[in-house]
């Protein structure tokens, strides 16, 4: 830990943590449109820009589609950019999410996870960002507010790394984290992150054209480059995670977090805020003699295949809990986990459970009962107190 690093503990919501992270990460252009439950990020940032506390240009766009377009334009022109959205807003951005990836603009976005309607549902559900899985964005799922702050700052270091150059979304459950205040350390990150050094600048003497027609002779190269950048990102994430630990004293995972997994026979796999309840369940199960453990995935894209295989290679059973679903198939994390474990000579048994859609409560009892075989159906409809 650097001794001259200033820090302050503040009790703030996830949205406030996201806004502060953007400010401290030296974001210079923000373009955003309000949507519940991400709205307070937009409000906080506009206030900080208006008061001069944050040195940035805020474009109060008329839609999320334009928010992302403006971020891409500003990023391409040489600025560090940020936006925040949720649910329908993220869905509306979809076209531009692909655009940001292929344009290799390292935009970072906060996503307060929320269900997509109809009917109108403003509560926690990872379906919004999970359904943007194939846009080429890196995706990180946070489980507390400290993580939101730390991850947004680290996300810029990863996204802008010359081996990566990919956009990143930092996701956190709507209301459960976005509107819940908890104490977090606000570390001054001035020496951790510099002003943005753009890859290219507008050059009026040697002008170049970006994004014109790319014929079949070149397009596959571009797509392969994007995929290879995702693979390289895993290595960069490990470096940034360690560097941030040395800088701040906090080991905030970027790839995954394990809890009592070393000697576990049964592993639970989760993403996002429900992981805290799963940890309680691990302790409870262990009291009852079940050797349970937890693997929380922080990174969904790039998917840490090798790391997951290493962690789950020796367990007997795996229970995967998805706060999202792919209609016509299964929970997405469940599907991907099975695909990864298929490489093992003798893979564990893998079970999937759909939980907590549209903000339905997910308690530690849900995890316990699932592992004890008392919830044997795919859909966990019950709220168990």
């Amino acid at each position, binding site marked *: 830990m650097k001794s001259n690093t200033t820090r302050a503990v503040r009790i703030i919501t996830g949205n406030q943590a996201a806004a502060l992270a953007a400010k401290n990460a030296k974001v*210079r*252009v923000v*373009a955003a449109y309000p949507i519940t439950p991400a709205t307070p990020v937009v409000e906080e940032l506009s206030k900080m820009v208006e008061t001069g506390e944050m040195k*940035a*240009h805020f*474009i*109060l*766009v*008329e*839609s999320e*589609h*334009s*928010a992302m*377009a*403006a*971020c*891409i*334009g*500003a*990023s*391409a*022109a*040489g*600025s560090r*950019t940020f936006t925040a959205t949720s649910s329908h807003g993220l869905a509306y951005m979809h*076209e*531009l999410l692909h*655009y940001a990836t292929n344009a290799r603009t390292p935009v970072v976005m906060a996503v307060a996870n929320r269900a997509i309607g109809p009917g109108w549902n403003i509560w926690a559900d990872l379906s919004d960002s999970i359904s943007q899985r194939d846009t080429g964005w890196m995706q990180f799922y946070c489980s507390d507010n400290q993580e939101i702050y730390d991850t947004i700052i680290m996300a810029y270091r990863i996204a802008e790394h010359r081996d990566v150059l990919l956009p990143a979304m930092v996701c956190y459950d709507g209301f459960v984290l976005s509107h819940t205040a908890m104490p977090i350390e606000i570390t001054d990150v001035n020496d951790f992150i510099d002003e943005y050094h753009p890859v290219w600048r*507008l*050059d*009026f*003497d040697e*002008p*170049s*054209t*970006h*994004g*014109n*027609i*790319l*014929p079949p002779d*070149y397009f596959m190269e571009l797509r392969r480059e994007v995929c290879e950048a995702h693979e390289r990102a895993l290595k960069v994430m490990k470096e940034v995670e360690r560097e941030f630990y040395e800088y701040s004293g906090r080991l905030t995972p970027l790839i995954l977090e394990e809890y009592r997994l070393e000697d576990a026979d049964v592993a639970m796999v989760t993403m996002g805020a429900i992981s805290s309840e799963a940890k309680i369940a691990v302790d409870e199960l262990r009291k009852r003699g079940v050797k349970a453990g937890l693997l929380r995935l922080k990174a969904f894209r790039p998917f840490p295949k090798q790391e997951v295989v290493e962690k789950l290679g020796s367990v007997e059973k795996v229970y995967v809990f998805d706060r999202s679903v792919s209609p016509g198939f299964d929970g997405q994390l469940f599907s991907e986990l099975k695909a990864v474990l298929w490489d093992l000579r003798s893979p564990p048994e893998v079970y999937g459970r759909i939980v907590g859609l549209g903000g339905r409560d997910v308690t530690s009892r849900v995890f316990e009962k699932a592992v004890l075989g008392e919830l044997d159906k795919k859909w966990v409809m019950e709220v168990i107190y």
Partner: protein
Amino acid sequence: MRISALPREEYLLPGNAACHGCASSMCLRTVLKALGKNTVLIVPASCTSVYQGMFPNSAIAVPVFNTAFASAAATASGIKASLLQQGIDANVVVWAGDGGTYDIGLQALSGAAERNEDIIYICYNNEMYSNTGIQRSGATPYGAWTTTTWSGKKEHRKDVAELMMSHEVPYVATASAGYLADLYQKVKKAKKMEGFRYIEILSPCPPGWRYPMEKTVEIGKLAVETGMWILYEYEEGHFRLTGVSKAIAEGRRKMKDIGEYLFAQGRFAHLSDGDVVKIREYVEDRWRKLVKMESDMHAASAKFYV
């Protein structure tokens, strides 16, 4: 001003992929001469996405950022914000077709205009989706054949230049590919101003409008001479007709009959007498409306004569 007086510098290079007789490329060449090298061009999906040339080549000798169809004005807003943050002074200019302006891009355009973004938005209006092969747009005039209005469009066009005036942006102007010197001077004037500036160019399209490619300039002039397209400027709240439109309004030139314009083009060849009457009434109504607008607004005298 004579065309021969335009600067020699070329920023739209020969060998681009525009159709023969393309008004858009002719106008872009003129627009870039007016803007000069310190310009970044934002191009949404449109004919210009194609005729600028394929990677790794480009026919445009200023920085170009191609963007998604609905996003031109928003992307330009982001680029401008970034340049402001970096202290870089440059013309941020959208070059979009009528699809990207009238229809799919209207929301972003309206948002940027309302925010008074410091950008120039130029719409080259060829009154249809030319790039996808001649389909109806919100700018297609009544009666015109397209591949989605086989028996002729049943509705009149809307008018985004007037919509921009209702946004009360600092500058709105119309131009026509028939009068490049007028276009050049309007872009020059816009360049000197600040805030949101909108210029719309009537951009005839030989394959879409069904006329011989050497007639582009002639069609562009006929549109103005018959009142189908009206040249004007709206500047800081003042409206005035310009060029040939001004001359007609002042009685120095006689307005030509609409038939001369319509029947020079295959897209109107099927029109019935009733259709022609309907178009004539539309043109006359709109002409009266704009002439009245000029007198109501106590306009300053027009600067440009063609």
